[in-house]
């Protein structure tokens, strides 16, 4: 029941999608100043609301929760109570936002100018906005946008202002505080800042969680945070972080509010501002520290065309209906509610499931542009070793095929049908001129650099990888559509027979292996398998009966496409395994892992033993390591002199590598794990 509230895995084609409205259209017609100064009167929460940021602070500092922890900390540390209390005030001061309408108006003005300069349109689903207007009055609201760009939260607040919705209080990472002026301006437009890590700091945690809960309980403002915790550099959704979601659900679970509405918001950029920046970062060029001057240098972007943005406000998800039958709320009535407690096992797994479902909802409502299909095709072509490019008309033909497949899988594809396909393709290609090159009716990835200086082979490889990874980040946008069928296709490929049981266990193995890489809801393996079977049967690629999974005559093309979309990941994970088997030294730590595995992979790429430069992505490498740690093939040594080093189980790694490569049946591999 609860899962249906968020997304329905069955026949996504049936889903009716809302229409979009371009907010920039109005901005292009009337003056920005007038818009920035217009009367802003948002709909408010029906409950008693506190509207002053200062009152909010007082409430937090006077709360039972904080008093309890202040006392506790004072008792444990021997620091006088007043000092601890003062420290709490300082923490709160550092954290709290100071929303000011004037700053918001300034942003409304500036952002209008910027947006009009760099974006063709900002399309918002109006029905989603209407639903939000409704729900904001009913219950405390948590906005959960996807996170692909720094632009995300500016854009969110801009839209809230535009639609006369209450401005959200946004949980932002402390790194913004480094940018003095901008940091303060963000604070005045509703951002509050949290340290990236505060592991054992009880006091910090207490101030922070109480601050967030007070915002929710009092209907002060919608809360906004990023489930993924940080910007995804790969455009794949990241494994959700549970901390803030736990806090946001707490007022409901403890009965302090009747319900909390979670609103997943999917923001898709036709061209991400940080596109090559991300690729460089993934390849090991450290990201520039956020600084105000850095931002101004980014002015260069103002002259570029970043296409359009689609923002989809998903249907609100009621925490109450999610929790129905999952959490026994009376467990919270046996101890005073202000005493902080670790979430129990069932609450933890409930929040975890909810988080995954919400991220899935974000994925599902992400609008896909034709370019993501082209990127997928070009990368596959590249992977097949054809640097000679693809003939344009062939690319168009393939893209149309892929478009149809996508649609049958229920993707939210924004392909303008009224325009001839050739035009759609060529306009996409021209928007991404930095990544693709068209010459003599052939389309190439823009891999060759201007022959200005002599590059080493490694440098050349890395610069090619930048382009490949940038393209991959677009391909990744469509991965969630193909993921389950692709896992099935790969499972069929690796399974030793067409027995359904055999295929399923292969599927399970791959799904388990990749559950740090992709968003795969915990405990939904059967559902995922059924969904994959359903979709592939529907498109006529498979015949499935009770015992067997058989490839249909006309299914080869689809299956080949699906297997090769997953291939870089399969190869990448095998690479990581073989690195750990062959090259890992005794003193390998988690920190040294990425540079070491990168060097190993570069070697293989240069020798031509590996075809996919995208395996150089540190994201993939880290995910692989996380999976191996989870599976126990690698262990982190705790304590002692070697604390933090990685201990490798070679036998297991070997068998995992062989299974990934299809050289060992999953049954055997599973046995080997045990």
């Amino acid at each position, binding site marked *: 029941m609860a899962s249906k509230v968020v997304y329905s895995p069955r026949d996504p084609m049936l889903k009716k999608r809302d229409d979009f409205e371009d907010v920039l259209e109005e901005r292009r017609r009337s003056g920005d100043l007038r818009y920035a100064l217009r009367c802003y009167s948002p709909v408010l929460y029906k409950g008693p609301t506190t509207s002053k940021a200062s009152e909010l602070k007082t409430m937090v500092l006077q709360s039972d929760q904080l008093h309890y922890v202040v006392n506790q900390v004072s008792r444990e540390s021997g620091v006088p109570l007043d000092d601890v209390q003062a420290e709490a005030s300082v923490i709160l001061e550092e954290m709290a936002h100071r929303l000011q309408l004037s700053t918001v108006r300034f942003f409304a003005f500036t952002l209008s100018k910027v947006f009009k300069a760099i974006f063709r349109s900002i399309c918002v689903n109006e029905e989603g906005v209407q639903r939000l207007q409704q729900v904001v009055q009913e219950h405390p609201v948590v906005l959960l946008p996807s996170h692909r760009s720094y632009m995300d939260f500016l854009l969110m607040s801009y839209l809230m202002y535009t639609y006369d919705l209450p401005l959200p209080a946004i949980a932002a990472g402390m790194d913004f505080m480094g940018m003095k002026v901008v940091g303060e301006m963000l604070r005045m437009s509703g951002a509050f800042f949290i340290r990236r890590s505060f592991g054992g700091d009880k006091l910090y945690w207490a101030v922070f969680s109480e601050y967030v809960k007070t915002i929710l309980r009092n209907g002060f403002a919608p809360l906004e945070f990023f489930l993924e915790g940080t910007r995804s550099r790969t455009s794949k959704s990241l494994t959700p972080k549970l901390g803030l979601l736990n806090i946001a659900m707490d007022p409901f679970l403890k*009965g302090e509010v*009747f*319900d909390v509405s979670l609103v997943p918001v999917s923001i898709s950029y036709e061209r991400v501002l940080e596109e090559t920046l991300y690729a460089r970062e993934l390849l090991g060029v450290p990201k520039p520290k956020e600084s105000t001057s850095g931002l101004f240098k980014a002015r260069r972007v103002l002259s570029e065309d970043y296409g359009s943005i689609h923002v989809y406000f998903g249907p609100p998800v009621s925490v109450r209906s999610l929790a129905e039958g999952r959490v026994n*709320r009376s467990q919270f*009535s046996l101890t*005073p*509610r202000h005493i902080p407690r670790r979430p129990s096992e069932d609450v933890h797994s409930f929040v975890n499931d909810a988080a995954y479902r919400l991220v899935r909802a974000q994925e599902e409502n992400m609008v896909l542009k034709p370019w993501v299909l082209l990127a997928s095709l070009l990368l596959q072509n590249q992977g097949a070793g054809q640097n000679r490019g693809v003939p344009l008309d062939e690319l168009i033909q393939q893209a149309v095929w892929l478009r149809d497949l996508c649609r049958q899988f229920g993707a939210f594809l924004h392909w303008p049908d009224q325009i001839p396909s050739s035009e759609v393709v060529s306009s996409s290609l021209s928007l991404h001129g930095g990544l693709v090159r068209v010459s003599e009716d052939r389309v190439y990835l823009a891999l060759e650099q201007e022959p200005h200086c002599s590059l080493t082979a490694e440098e050349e490889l890395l610069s090619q990888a930048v382009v490949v990874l940038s393209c991959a980040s677009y391909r990744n946008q469509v991965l969630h559509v193909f993921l389950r069928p692709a896992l099935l296709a790969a499972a069929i490929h690796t399974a030793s027979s067409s027995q359904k049981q055999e295929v399923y266990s292969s599927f399970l193995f791959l799904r388990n292996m990749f559950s740090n890489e992709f968003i795969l809801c915990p405990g939904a393996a059967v559902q995922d398998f059924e969904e994959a079977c359903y979709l592939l049967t529907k498109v006529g690629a498979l015949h499935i009966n009770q015992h067997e999974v058989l490839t249909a005559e006309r299914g080869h093309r689809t299956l080949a496409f699906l297997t090769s979309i997953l291939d870089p990941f399969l190869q990448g994970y095998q690479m990581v395994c073989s690195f750990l088997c062959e090259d890992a030294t005794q003193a390998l730590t988690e920190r040294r892992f990425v540079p070491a595995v990168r060097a190993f992979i570069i070697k293989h790429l240069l020798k031509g033993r590996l075809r996919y430069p995208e395996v150089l992505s540190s994201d993939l490498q880290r995910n692989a390591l996380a999976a191996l740690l989870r599976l126990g093939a690698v262990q982190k040594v705790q304590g002692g002199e070697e604390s933090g080093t990685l201990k490798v189980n070679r036998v297991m790694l070997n068998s995992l590598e062989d299974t990934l490569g299809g050289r060992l049946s999953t049954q055997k591999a599973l046995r080997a794990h045990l």
Partner: protein
Amino acid sequence: MISLTFTSVFVPFSSIVLLQPKITNSFSNLLHYFFFCRQEIMKWNGWGYSDSKFVYNKKGQAEFTGKRYKLSGMIIPGLKDWMENTFGATLQHKAAATPALNSSAVPPPTLNEAFVEELKSTGVPFSADAEDRVFRAHGHCLHEIFALREGKIGRVPDMVVWPNCHSDVVKIVELACKHNVCLIPYGGGTSVSSALECPPEETRSIISLDTSQMNRILWIDEKNLTAHIEAGIIGQDLENLLNESGYCTGHEPDSMEFSSLGGWVATRASGMKKNIYGNIEDLVIRIKMVTPQGVIEKSCQGPRMSTGPDIHHFIMGSEGTLGVITEVTMKIRPVPEYQKYGSVVFPNFEQGVACLREVARQHLRCHYHHFFLSPDNFNLMFSTGHALKPQVSSIFTSFLDGLKKFYITKFKGFDPNRLCVATLLFEGNREKVLQHEKQVYDIAAKFGGLAAGEDNGQRGYMLTFVIAYLRDLGMDYFVIGESFETSVPWDRVLDICRNVKARIIHECKDKGVQFPPLSTCRVTQTYDAGACVYFYFAFNYRGLSDPVHVYEQVEHAAREEILANGGSLSHHHGVGKLRKEWMREAVSSVGMGMLQSVKDYVDPNNIFGSRNLL
């Protein structure tokens, strides 16, 4: 006994106003009837006395009939509008009840001949008359009354017996064990937990054991301030009888006009004056109960004992599953010399609750006060209170009222939609009452409370007794509803009120209820560690094919919500069969096992087969 006279009926107000003796002495002739066959003067398919009910007169004005209450015979001008505005219940849409019981609809009794034969020889009166049986086959749950109004009769007792004293009960229980018939004790019949419903799966003959004839005060001990009373006595009669000797028990549940002492003990009852006198468990000294294993009782009247777990606690709350309570020794108190009503208006419910909490914290309960709190749309005092406000001759009074309202809403800036009212009653010696009153008003002032006069306080008490009659009026016009209660720690009061009310509205919408429901609550009792909260829930069921089912689903959801918010399964209504499904969760499996083992020992053949509780 005859000396009771009519005051018994008017007691809630006897000390408030001087009533004109409206009833002739011929009424005392009715008393015989009253005691032997209460059903003669009580409704068979609704609450209370047959002659007392809300009706719309020919002019379409609401009127309360009869002569028993202060409100009786009066026009209540605001009620019709209130019914229309709150429920959309208009005069055009009437849902008339079956006027009289159709005896042929009653299933014929399954009699255990051998039992009947032997019973005859004991001389205990009994009856297998359809009306007698139907009257004792139900309590006052909505589904029970609704079915009766529709003329639907389910499984009813096969026979009614009227024991006259403890030894009669002993004989009946012995015979029941011997012949394996099922006994269901019946006191006042005011159960709201389906406790009196006959289990449909029961194949044995079911005997309703009506305790109404065991209604004497056997002795009063003025030295120890105790009285020994037969358990069948009705609350109001007990109070009146004791008043004649200058005493009272102080136990006044809202149902005291109809509920019995034995019923109070069997359900762990609570009275509105418990803050000074205590709940039933604080009031009883000794209990005598007849069980299939024999009579259980303590051997002395010591005020407290350390003799292992208190066996009274197996009896109190046993809900008729272990035996029949026949006699009770109870604490009594001298009738207070002075009583004063009062009321306080708070700007909102939150402030009101905060004030109650403070009053409880300061232990200001040595003298009695009583709080009604009711937030938002259904403000008992300012909506119903006004709706029920009888037409008064004096224009001056209403002028004053207007002024007060103006003062509160305009001058003090209270939002009339969020106002809430506490009504108070102080008892004791005059000096202390006045001192106490001042203390309470001082606390109230700290929470923004404004004293709202004695008459508002009195009106609150009047409402207590007539509010139950309102449901019957509602049912005449497609409105069904009920109240249910819980107890909850102080820090949860506001949360539980908000969430349960919202849940009710939510569920009604979900279940297709066409009209906005009434969903409100009040705090009725305060304790050191928490409070008792009542929820009121009613809706217009026009357009629903199975309104009772919808009602039950919503009530079920509301109870789930109560439990999820840290509320108890019941404060004083009991579990019965209505709330049985949550018992294990409420007392743990071990707890259930303990209760079950007591049942297994005391009543291995399930003679007391009402199947309540476990």
